[in-house]
């Protein structure tokens, strides 16, 4: 569905949304005041950040962390906090 606001004749009936996952068109990255910075060198790819991310904003490829999806990351800081103590591959910095 396009972001253009449609008239009543064009909309599907019953308030239905006819495809899944359209929220990906809505970017929540602008909510952020703190930004997670991921270190490729330090990361052990334990995926703890991934399983605890409320916004599915940890980018993976072949089950390995590739970085943060800043389009959606709201900057909650759970990833940085839950990154294991000995690893600490994510650091929160002020959003500019």
């Amino acid at each position: 569905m396009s972001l253009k606001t449609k008239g009543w004749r064009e909309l599907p009936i019953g308030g239905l949304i006819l495809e899944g996952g359209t929220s990906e068109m809505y970017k929540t990255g602008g909510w952020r005041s703190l930004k997670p910075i991921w270190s490729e060198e330090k990361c052990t790819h334990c995926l703890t950040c991934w399983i605890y991310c409320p916004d599915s904003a940890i980018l993976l490829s072949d089950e390995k962390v590739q970085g943060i999806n800043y389009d959606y990351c709201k900057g909650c800081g759970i990833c940085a906090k839950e990154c294991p103590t000995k690893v600490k591959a994510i650091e929160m910095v002020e959003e500019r």
Partner: protein
Amino acid sequence: MGKISAKTGNEAMAEAMRQINPDVVAAYPITPATEIVQIFAGFKSDGLVDTEFIATESEHSALSACIGSAASGARTMTATASQGLVLMQEMLYIASGLRLPIVIAEVNRALSSPINIHCDHSDTMGARDSGWIQIYSENAQEAYDNLIQAVRIAESALLPVMVTIDGFIISHGMERIEIIPDEEVKGFIGEYRPRYTLLDEERSITMGAIDFTDYFFEHKRQQIEAMKEAKEKIIEVSKEFNSRFKRDYGLFECYRLEDARYALVVLGSTGGTVKVVVDELREDGVKAGLLKVRVFRPFPWQEIKDTLAYIPFIAVMDRSDGLSSLGGPVFQEIRSALYDIDSRPKVINYIYGLGGRDTKLHHIKQVFQDLQGIDRTGRIDGLINYLGVRE
């Protein structure tokens, strides 16, 4: 020609449900609709239907389960009355908003308080703005025919439908009715092919999303249009029913109305009583007639206006009072429909039969006499009148 049989209104509705053999029935028993649910459960237990029957723990859950079922593409029905319909009220709006073609067999009964199990129309009138098509039946035959048609109407309009009968008077009164052969009912209703379903393998739909101010009005506008368009769909289904089964239904029934000077407007079983009085008055040379509303939602105001425009004296009979101080809902809407006519008929209102109070021939005669009195004197003494209540 079908089989002639003696059935109560409830039995007739249950029989229609057996023949429809819906995918899912979710229901909770309530007087005077209990029998419909009981009889249908019996059909299920005896293997006469292979419907899945959900005996829920409340009417609210019954309609909620119907919503889940209809949203999954299943032909879905329920039955209820009175407090049950009121408990469903929240879900009535959700069913129609989601455009789910659920059908309710409804038995009209008064609303508490005081608690009362007998007929009036306050239950369905309270649901008149819930986005459901409403079809009122005069007798068991009409209830049976209407329920069968309702399945087709709901599925073509993509709106839910309630078919009503008057509690006890019709629900428990034994009548002679013609039952259409099973195969012919099956042929008439056809296979249901849902447009959208949660069980669609191809796509994952979201139903019941939240609208903010940017979309709500558009979605309601669609629903308004669907209700307007439903009128033609009801007419189409009724025509096809008539061509197959030789029983003619319109949006309303006109009885000796063509040259009438005095007309009553009623819904439901009182139509039969009025017809008797009309015949008697006609024999005495009084030009009496009846307009019996079958489809109250959508409200066929244009057709009613065209029909009543030339009848100078009209009494609208309401079996519920809106407690608004302006009489009953049928009165308000009929009167409003006639407003644009240059030489408007005189329209008065009678509240009658609340809580199952009997409405007899002499009551109806009184109403016609009152109309004749207005004709003679040119004066309306009572705009809103109460028929058969002790002062």
